[in-house]
């Protein structure tokens, strides 16, 4: 697929993610979802553009705001929505919920409810790829908050020392829950921390799908070439609160509205039209199909069975024989 064709596909995926999050928000309001639901709306360009460059057998780890990464990695929205509703048909059979979606068949090693918890796991998957001599890469998605965890430092140092095929994608959305980055983080650009590990660090406009795509391509090509890891910081903004019930006392409506003007989907649409890569009708059609895909996922999830409480103890341990 050429980069231009990929951009149209990224647009399609960004719309699926946006619709998924809008439906999730609405379902939460109707008490059809419980627990903590952290919505990705506003950040879609990051997951969609990075994952457009990955094959099914490339790895990602994700975080608590993980629906976008999961869908962008190619997972079926029906099983993702079913997991949000805790249904037996969900990716985790209702054991994980919104913060713990994994899809090993698509290389998604899991979302994570511990901030930074997935970073070393992606690092280990990169080590595994290197030791097995494959051309797989491993991408860790995490937020600005995770870059202040010790495990971020440990993992990037390890990946740099071992020249692992890893890409560290920091989605800087401006806040760790309510605390702005300037109050929590010693540098305005998290990407500069790459220098501490002797690896490339790059700041990119996370609302610009084309820019994210170009930067991620450099990082992924570098990883596949055996040249080691990259830290990519994507500056973006989340439209919803930290979670669905967040009163959002830490920011103004004007600030949110200003960022909505910088909507990554609108921006990519304008670019696709301006460059003549797609017609308005074709893009409308993609958007309508995204809505339909997600509506079907919601239907599927609602009509799916609840897990059987008699089987609650299943899968604490793998009980079969050794796999080798």
């Amino acid at each position: 697929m050429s980069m231009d064709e990929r951009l149209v596909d990224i647009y399609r995926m960004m719309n699926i993610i946006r619709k998924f999050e809008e439906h999730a928000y609405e379902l939460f309001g109707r008490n059809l979802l419980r627990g903590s639901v952290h919505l990705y709306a506003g950040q879609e360009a990051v997951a969609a553009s990075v994952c457009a460059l990955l094959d099914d057998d490339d790895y990602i780890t994700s975080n608590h705001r993980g629906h976008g990464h999961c869908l962008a990695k190619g997972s079926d929205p029906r099983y993702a929505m079913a997991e949000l509703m805790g249904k037996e048909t969900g990716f985790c059979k209702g054991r994980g919920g919104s913060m713990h979606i994994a899809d090993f068949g698509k290389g998604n090693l899991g979302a994570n409810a511990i901030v930074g918890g997935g970073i070393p796991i992606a690092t280990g998957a990169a080590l595994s790829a290197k030791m097995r001599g494959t051309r797989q890469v491993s991408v860790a998605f995490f937020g600005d908050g995770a870059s202040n965890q010790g495990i971020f430092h440990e993992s990037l140092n390890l990946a740099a020392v071992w020249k692992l095929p890893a890409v560290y994608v920091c989605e800087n959305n401006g806040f760790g829950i309510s605390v702005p980055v300037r109050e929590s983080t010693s540098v305005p650009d998290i990407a500069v921390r790459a220098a501490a590990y002797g690896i490339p660090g790059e700041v990119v406009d996370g609302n610009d799908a084309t820019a994210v795509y170009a930067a991620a391509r450099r990082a992924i090509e570098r990883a596949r070439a055996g040249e080691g890891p990259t830290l990519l910081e994507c500056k973006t903004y989340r439209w919803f609160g930290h979670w669905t019930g967040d009163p959002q006392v830490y920011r103004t409506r004007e600030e949110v509205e200003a960022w909505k003007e910088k909507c990554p989907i609108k921006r990519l649409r304008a670019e696709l039209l301006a460059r003549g890569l797609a017609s308005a009708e074709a893009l409308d059609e993609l958007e309508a199909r995204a809505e339909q895909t997600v509506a079907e996922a919601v239907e599927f999830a609602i009509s799916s069975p609840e897990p059987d409480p008699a089987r609650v103890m299943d899968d604490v341990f793998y009980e079969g024989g050794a796999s080798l």
Partner: protein
Amino acid sequence: MSTKTYAVAIRDTLAEEMRRDPAVFVMGEDVAEQGGIFGCTRDLYREFSKDRVRNTPISEAALVGAGIGAASTGMRPVVELMYMDFTYVAMDQILNQAAKIRYMFGGRARVPLVIRGQQGIGRGNAGQHSQSVEAFFMHIPGIKVAMPSTPADAAGLLRTAIRDDNPVLFIEHKALYAVKGEVPDDPEYTVPFGSARVVREGRDATVIATHLYVDKALRVANTLMKEGISVEVIDPRTLIPFDEQTILKSVAKTHRAVVIHEAHKNAGPGAEIAATIMEKAFDELDAPVLRLGAKACTLPFNLGLENAVVPQESELLDAVRRVCYR
């Protein structure tokens, strides 16, 4: 059979498993040229290269996390932690990640990860290098806990751990490394998890002991034999899974039980074992189950103080006499 030390039994088993399965590899602090500071990986890098015997930075959390990532993607890592006390540095990765991944993800993941290293007293290592950590890991579902007390069990249990598709915390004891014993030469020799070893048969009281206390219990049993008390000694060998049947069967015979370990007595493994006996074999008991474990006190440096914190043989003697009303 060959006579070898506990440390060599571990090293030889690692080597045999690495020869058998290219997915098995070792990583940890100082494991290559140094051979691990207790020699459990000595010379392995010569045969398997430093790619499969990896020196790592002092980053225990990343080390365990990288092990999880590798284990989830087709490798079978054995992560060495120099001291079991360092599990606390990596607790999130062990208990929030490794132990939960399979369950949280609906049974669709396997994490064949071994975390091994040594713990315990005996070298004057004080509060942050002498602790017994097993109780923490018994409490959180999803990780197995093995505690070999002999060279043969070290070999057989480690082979089972490496071949297990679940995370295993493999707890060695620093004071056992130099202990020699007979170890089967069979490179397929395994000891199944959840099978306690009846170390010595007896009629009058059951002593359930781990690590160093297995040998101490045997000495106590020999002493008490002269007093006409016949002591059965059982080593659970793995705490998760736990072989209830062997212990309950023994208690049904002896009607008395004492649990002894080096871990703190408060909320320690003995509490779990004693409660299990009382819940499931109360009618068999002729005396309350007694627990012996370290005092609720940080492990001190000074030898005399260290010995004052952990249970002594004389205390076990008294405890067995007490449950026998002697």
